């Protein structure tokens, strides 16, 4: 697939829809397995822990099979989104994933400074001065509001340990 073709370049809506329905069905199956493990029959004190989730799981699977069938039957050949648009979306998802993944190791503050800085510099193309101002300003303000005023501890990494915060 080339990106410079017509406006319709991108994954088909139909396919994405079918994929989502399948994922939901899979989720339903996981729920059913988990419920069976917890016990789905009717015990001495009424229904056991897995009784309701089991039927919820069945509902999920059945309705997603119907949704899947609807999706595949549809003639609609519209694109889900253009590749360019999806790239935009990924340009947020990927850095956010890295940000979130790094948080347990670096702590919230260091990760946030880098994340905000990256976002503003690469997507917003702001001058370094503005970038650094916001990137450092926001976590510092956060520190005072959350940790100092409201005593909500946020995740900290080696830097905070070293600073003794």
């Amino acid at each position, binding site marked *: 697939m080339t990106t410079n073709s017509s406006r319709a370049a991108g994954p088909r809506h139909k396919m994405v*829809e079918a994929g*989502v329905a399948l994922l*939901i069905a899979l*989720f*339903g199956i996981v*729920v059913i397995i*988990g*419920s069976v*493990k*917890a016990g789905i029959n009717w*015990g001495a*004190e*009424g*229904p*056991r*822990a897995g009784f*309701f*989730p089991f039927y919820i*799981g069945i*509902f*999920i699977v059945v*309705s997603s099979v*119907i*949704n899947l069938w*609807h999706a595949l039957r549809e003639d609609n050949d519209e694109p*889900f*989104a253009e590749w360019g*648009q*999806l790239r*935009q*979306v990924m*340009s*947020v*998802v990927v850095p*956010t*994933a890295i*940000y*979130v*993944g790094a*948080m347990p190791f670096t702590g*919230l503050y260091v990760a*946030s400074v880098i*994340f*905000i800085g990256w*976002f*503003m510099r690469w*997507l*917003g193309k*702001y001058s370094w001065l503005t970038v650094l101002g*916001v990137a450092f300003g*926001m976590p510092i303000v*956060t520190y005072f*509001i*959350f940790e100092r005023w*409201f*005593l*909500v*501890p*946020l*995740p900290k990494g080696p830097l905070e340990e070293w600073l003794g915060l």
Partner: protein
Amino acid sequence: MEEIVNLFHGFAVALQPFNIMVMLVGIVLGVIIGVLPGLGGANGVAILLPLTFSMPPTSAIIMLSCIYWGALFGGAITSILFNIPGEPWSVATTFDGYPMAQQGKAGEALTAAFTSSFVGALFAVVMITLVAPLVASFALQFGPAEKFAVYFLAFCSFVGLSKEPPFKTIAAMMMGFALAAVGLDSITGQLRLTFGFTEMLNGFDFLIAVIGLFGIGEILITMEEGLSFRGGKAKIDLRVVLQTWKSLPAYWMTSLRSCVIGCWMGITPAGATPASFMSYGIAKRVSKNGNNFGKGEIEGVIAPETAAHAAGTAALLPMLSLGVPGSPTAAVLLGGLLIWGLQPGPMLFVEQKEFVWGLIASMYLGNLFGLIVVLTCVPIFAAILRVPFSIIAPLILVLCAIGAYSVHSSTFDVMLMLVFGVVGYLLKKCNYPLAPLVLAIVLGDKAEEAFRQSLLGSFSNPLVSTIMVLGLIALFWSAIQEGFSRLRTATA
């Protein structure tokens, strides 16, 4: 008559200069707490509780209840501006509030939300003033079966028929129920659906799901449409407040209905969340602009906000007269009362008159002050939307991460939030409704618990049957309405 005298005495207590100052501080702190996801009203009150021990009990409870009001007001701000509800009961506010903001009507939406909150709270306070003892005995009627019936009613009046394909609605709602079931089953005391992961012990908190599905999902959709935040053209002067006020009296019926729903749900004590969903659902069905709901209809902001605040306020009554908290925030306040040596319960109204009426008077004044404070800030809030997207987006993402983390102090939840964000983006693009999913997460386990408690005890009685029938009527309202109109055309 005695109540009125007591109330005026209460005003005298609340209007002491120290108490007025305490009230203002409380409101401002409350708004900050409401705006920042991650600082809910409950932790705000809990964290500040120790600081209030050095004050007299009446001043302390005035400050804490003002934090509570402020947080209620503040919760609407992020819902409208960024589609991120900070509290469960602001979820329904996003449905029309956020579209309004996108259309450049953030100022109108905020004004409507704040004013409705005030109206709802005022209605509930008047009710508390006049009929407190009556209400307390009504609340005692509510056992598990009655509670289940109320949850059932909330679901029915909200779900009904929606634009989305019915099986997508069912799939979404059932996913919500399944997520709500994860963790400890409170009836058998057994773990379920955790698959041995200790991270799953807590289950899926509503806040994490909602920050992801609504907040992050929305940012992803905005990214797809290009790097811009719509709504930048929102008016940012105070005239918008007056203009909106002119249009509000037209919706008096919606307000009144929402007030009644809110008070009823607050006392039962099902709480503010079902109240806001129910009120929104019913307004959508009854209003002549019903089809416009979800696209930025001001009535869709008025209905949930009024009901949520009426319920939030009315919930304080069972707390004072029975000692049962109607919300997590109320639970913390209750703990505070005990620490000050005040025992909530039937005797509080008799033995601690000054305290009780001081608190009730502060509800009037606190709400009024709160309204003035937040309304003057409407232009400032609306101006936030003018900040360029590439600055505000990372800041929102970081705040979302903090919000998700602070629910259980767990970085696992932050990852979960991102997963919910991507899922929310996909679901929204595929036309799955997100609101039933969130409603199911919030109420699912409570409804199941009440249902199974009633299985253990007894089930049917007139109150339960009445509420259930109301629920069924709400569920099939569109069909009934259609039947009526057909009947009418047939006879004509």
